[in-house]
């Protein structure tokens, strides 16, 4: 039962990603060409409501499901890793039209070719692990 809630949340996420068309290569191209508000509306709404939710969780000291305090981890303060890593990620995102979640949702949707993208992303993750100490962070 402990596992089930994560599977169900995942199913919900998969449906949301597909029904919002955020898993669409076309929609990602439309976003990077600034030709529709659709993707900006999705991300914008999620961030505004997410910010409100995080604020309220902190303010009201809401506890999690196990009764433990909810702590938000701050990201390490630096800039090279975020800008350079982000730029490399963006190149791949616009080319494949898929970030890590949508890659997997697309496979479930029946786009088998996304398996190639997932294999590439695993290779990319492995290469990062291999050379991370030589990269500016």
């Amino acid at each position: 039962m402990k596992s089930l809630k994560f599977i169900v949340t995942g199913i919900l996420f998969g449906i949301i990603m597909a029904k919002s068309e955020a898993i669409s290569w076309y929609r990602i191209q439309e976003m990077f060409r600034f030709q529709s508000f659709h993707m900006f509306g999705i991300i914008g709404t999620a961030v505004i409501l997410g910010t409100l939710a995080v604020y309220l969780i902190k303010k009201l000291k809401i506890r999690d499901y196990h009764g433990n305090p909810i702590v938000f981890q701050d990201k390490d303060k630096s800039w090279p890793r975020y800008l350079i890593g982000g730029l490399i990620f963006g190149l791949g995102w616009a080319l494949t039209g898929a970030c890590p979640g949508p890659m997997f949702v697309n496979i479930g949707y029946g786009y088998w070719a996304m398996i190639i993208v997932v294999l590439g992303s695993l290779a990319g993750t492995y290469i990062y692990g291999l050379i991370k100490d030589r990269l500016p962070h």
Partner: protein
Amino acid sequence: MLELIKQPWPWYTSGAMIAFTMVLLIYFGKSFGVSSNLRTLCTIAGAGAKVKFFDFDWKTQKWNLLFLMGSVFGGLLASTILKSDQPLQLSEATVQDLRSLGITFDGELNPSDIFGPDFALSVKGFMILLIGGLFVGFGARYAGGCTSGHAISGLSNLQLPSLLAVIGFFAGGLLMTYLLLPLIFKI
């Protein structure tokens, strides 16, 4: 109800539901970030024996793998019992721009010109998808997160590093869209 869910969702419903997913995972004592699973999958495949970065107890991430498995199943549901019969409403300007790249808009989620077997299994198509994926995987780990971890979770927690990452995502996306895609698809 089912009919309502089957329609393509408007952006505000979609955005609200993504925020809800994040809150649900926070309530379960976890955090919303999909790309960590790629590291976990490398660890399960045995990468920890050679590379220290992958040497961690992957069982602590089991919940996230279950979430990922669920999302694959969610995709399956969306393409079967929840499938909409309307074509995607892509902007006409995008349709035109893509046509000039030789990519036809077919009304589906993803172009068969790229994800159909003829292209995806050609040497060029396979390399495009593989290298594209490689950039996503490498970049996500280097930046310490992807769209879910930085753009949604990080920005919601007002993290400046996440804003830098999102700026990076867009810089890379624009570079690919305007400079590289014409080179890649026209040769």
